[in-house]
């Protein structure tokens, strides 16, 4: 095959057996790869009602047909499983250098089933795969594990692993790769931990074959020139400032969630802005494979209290360890981000869960005895300590490790959990930016900014501005952007580049660029409509899993706060999320019933079966 490697590796951890099989070309064509391929296997082979931390759950790592092809930003992969945090499906995306190396081993995907008796890691060296004992690295941090496994395999090997958080089944543990890159959300690291799989180490020697290398080279050169022109000859803003640039934009429209979403503006926002990160802490930008952007932040903190060196933070990590916890100490945010990375945890969920605990404490629903001390807004030192305690499930950290919903529910006040489907919201205030509210409520994985980033057109003006406060046309646009996001996650490229360069600059984000690249890579001769339909197919396949797992319309909602408590501050003071006015239109546009179940006609159109 071209574009795809044409092979899938199956690793049965219970039996310790590994076998190789061919990738079905029809499945590859219909589901593209990455998130779609993972979803296909989950729907085919797994009971959606299974316990996500039991051996019955599958853990699938999958690249896309553009991963490793030198398509700009084609260096990403997905980790797909049933989530222990939400009980729904999840697919967590990551970049760095690991995904390209993984594809070069000759496999499009690895499917892990069962669970090992003791700790193991998978070592794939130039197409030869073996399971090795991992007892000596069990309990070690992400940085320690990565260094040790590289030293005992191959200096050029790339590592994806879990840290203590994954081993301890923290419900939002991540799968980390290249030390600082995270397939972060929904607890894919806890699933890996439950399987006693500590790491996947890869060294590849195969090339990704292209159907039309000359055409591919021409497309690549054209799209890189287009991106350069777009930046007016300057380095991209994302390279200069990182995603932290979002702090100012969100603050400006009252969408910088503060103190567990009790406010939408943060008085200390300038102290946690991109300027401070760039001026005081940035050492150099970091790049994923084949990336012309370089949004990664290589940072260093000199302050003895929060000393460290590593990567990040992203906007979402700043929001979650900063404003939403009332914290304006940038050094502590960066440190907490390092700690979360090294223990292998989602910075967003750990920060928002901590914010939930702070509000429960503020309102007297959690006592100092339960916490082991006070838990005040903006207490920078305690925030860093609590992140560490969570990764090790130490003291009160054991309760934080269960996420906001379970914590708030155990205190008798689930309404203070800022979650959708039990997963913590991203750094946008749904009362101030209506499309993001609908996108998060209907996201298959729960709270997330990466299932439809409507902030592009509601805040950043890409491709043009449709104001954040209105709801007109939002149901249609959220659906279209959700399907486009599936194409991104299936093909193995990055959102930041794709939204600007692989789709047409219209609100409908027609995937023309994607189609050209996919055809030159795979030779599959897709039409633009077939690629669009593939995105819609994957989104509906996920919806089917979710319905089979027992979720429905009742779960497509936002916290009570966003629906009933008027915005207390900022430019949208008095506003509520208008989700109830948008949801029926959304289901109708999707071809789903009023209960949010895909209709028979829709399933037939997409070639899906119940």
């Amino acid at each position: 095959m071209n574009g795809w490697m044409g092979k899938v590796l199956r690793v049965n951890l219970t039996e310790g057996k590994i076998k190789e099989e061919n990738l079905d070309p029809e499945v590859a064509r219909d589901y593209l790869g990455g998130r779609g391929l993972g979803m296909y296997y989950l729907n085919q082979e797994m009971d959606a009602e299974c316990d996500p931390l039991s051996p019955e759950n599958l853990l699938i790592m999958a690249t896309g047909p553009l991963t490793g092809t030198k398509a700009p930003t084609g260096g990403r992969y997905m980790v797909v499983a049933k989530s222990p945090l939400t009980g729904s499906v999840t697919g967590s995306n990551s970049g760095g250098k690991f995904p390209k190396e993984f594809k070069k081993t000759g496999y499009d995907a690895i499917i892990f089933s069962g669970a090992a008796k003791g700790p193991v890691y998978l070592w794939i060296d130039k197409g030869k795969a073996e399971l090795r004992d991992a007892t000596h690295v069990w309990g070690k941090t992400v940085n320690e594990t990565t260094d040790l496994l590289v030293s005992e395999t191959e200096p050029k090997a790339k590592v994806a692993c879990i840290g203590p958080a994954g081993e301890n089944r923290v419900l939002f543990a991540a799968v980390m790769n290249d030390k600082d890159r995270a397939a972060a959300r929904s607890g894919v690291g806890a699933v890996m931990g439950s399987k006693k799989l500590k790491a996947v180490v890869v060294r590849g020697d195969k090339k990704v074959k292209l159907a039309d290398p000359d055409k591919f080279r021409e497309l690549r050169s054209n799209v890189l020139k287009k991106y350069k022109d777009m930046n007016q000859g300057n380095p991209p803003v994302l390279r200069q400032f990182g995603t932290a640039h979002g702090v100012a934009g969100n603050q400006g429209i009252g969408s910088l969630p503060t103190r567990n979403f009790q406010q939408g503006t943060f008085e200390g926002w300038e102290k946690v802005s991109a300027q401070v990160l760039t001026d005081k802490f940035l050492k150099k930008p970091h790049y994923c494979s084949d990336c012309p952007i370089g949004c990664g932040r290589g940072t260093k903190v000199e302050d003895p209290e929060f000393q460290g060196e590593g990567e990040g933070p992203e906007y979402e990590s700043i929001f979650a360890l900063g404003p939403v916890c009332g914290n304006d100490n940038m050094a502590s945010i960066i440190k907490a981000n390092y700690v979360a990375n090294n223990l292998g945890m989602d910075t967003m969920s750990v920060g928002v869960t901590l914010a939930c605990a702070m509000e429960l404490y503020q309102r007297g629903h959690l006592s100092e005895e339960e916490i082991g001390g006070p838990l005040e807004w903006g207490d920078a030192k305690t925030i860093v300590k609590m992140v560490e305690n969570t990764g090790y499930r130490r003291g009160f950290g054991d309760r934080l490790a269960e996420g906001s919903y379970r914590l708030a529910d155990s205190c008798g006040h689930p309404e203070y959990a800022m979650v959708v489907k039990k997963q913590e919201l991203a750094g946008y205030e749904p009362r101030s930016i209506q499309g993001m509210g609908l996108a998060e409520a209907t996201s298959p994985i729960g709270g997330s900014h990466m299932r439809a980033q409507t902030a592009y057109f509601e805040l950043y003006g890409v491709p043009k501005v449709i104001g954040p406060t209105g709801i007109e046309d939002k149901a249609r646009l959220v659906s279209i952007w959700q399907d486009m996001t599936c194409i991104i996650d299936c093909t193995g490229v990055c959102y930041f580049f794709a939204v600007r360069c692989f789709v047409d600059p219209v609100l409908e984000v027609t995937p023309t660029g994607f189609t050209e690249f996919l055809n030159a890579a795979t030779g599959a001769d897709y039409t633009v409509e077939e690629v669009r339909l593939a995105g819609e197919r994957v989104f509906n396949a996920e919806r089917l899993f979710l319905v089979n797992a027992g979720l429905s319309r009742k779960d497509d909602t936002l916290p009570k706060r966003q629906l009933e408590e008027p915005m207390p501050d900022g430019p949208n003071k008095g506003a509520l999320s208008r989700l109830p006015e948008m949801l029926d239109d959304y289901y109708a546009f999707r071809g789903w019933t009023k209960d949010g179940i895909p209709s028979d006609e829709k399933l037939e159109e997409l070639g899906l079966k119940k």
Partner: protein
Amino acid sequence: MKVEVRLIAFIQKYAPEDKSVFKMEVKKGATVTTVVEELGIPDTEPRLTLLNGIHAKDDAVLKDSDKLLLLTPIEGG
């Protein structure tokens, strides 16, 4: 009266003497548009506008010591 102006990202090229933060003398009744026009920022330049940390429209009237932030919009993630 004087206002503090801060330009971030691409829009910084309109800053006088290459300074991204500077004070500007404006007349009473001046608006965001007054400052934008004085700096020579064309309508075609993408920008977000924050006045004292809050999104502001171009006809917002400025007060003494106001902080005006103009930034090139890009995505967060």
